């Protein structure tokens, strides 16, 4: 079980890249936190581990 944006999800053996694609998010417009730490883009091929608390911010335009 992985917590994604506060919701428990069954996402066994899914990489961050695959997770973002399933959410229709473009990696160049996201920031992914695992626990309190940012996940560097170079590690987006990492497979999510059981118990990971993942927070995904999909940025939108305007400012």
């Amino acid at each position, binding site marked *: 079980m992985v917590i994604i944006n506060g919701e428990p999800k069954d996402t066994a053996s899914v990489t961050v890249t695959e997770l973002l694609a399933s959410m229709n998010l473009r990696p160049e417009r996201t*920031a992914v936190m695992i626990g309190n730490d*940012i996940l*560097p883009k170079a590690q987006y091929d990492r497979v999510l581990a059981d118990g990971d608390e993942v*927070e995904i*911010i999909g*940025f939108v335009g*305007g*400012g």
Partner: protein
Amino acid sequence: MITEAEFAEAVDSRSDRPIYGLMKRASVGIAGCGGLGSNIAAALVRSGVGHLTIADFDTVELSNINRQLYTLSHIGKAKVDALSEILSQIDPFCDITAHNTRITAENCAEIFSDCGIIIEAFDLPDQKAMLVNAVMEQMPEKYLISGNGMAGYGSANAIVTRKITDKLTVCGDGITDIADVTGLTAARVMICAGHMASRAV
């Protein structure tokens, strides 16, 4: 001419004295001086922040006036120069460092090295993501406040402050993209700017 002591006394009478002392010593960096950044800067200077670093590569255009702090007299000027001018009219004793440059993952650590808090106030989503990733990877000790989702004519109450990690706060409605809606209005942009400035204070 107003002296620094007179100025401090006037501001002091409207704020909590120990907090005002903390504010004078605080150093905040603002990345982007558009609708969010220019309004955040004004709020922070009025709140008594002593040191501000502002950075933007753009010049003021007529299309900015509907939501950014600038006036017609600033058109054609570098945004950081126009903003420094306005801020020094609000508080001549605020120490302002202006960088007329494009912020990148390569130069952000140097530009904001002295800042305890960094505020992401860009307009393009790729740039927002770039800065948030760069700051959190290169400067994990900094507090970071990012603006995300304030376009359109939606409810003011949809704009919220969300603490994501110990260091990262994101303000906005999180979903309204200027690419999908018409309009970016002063009222809604200033609400988001107010959330971001309030979080910094």
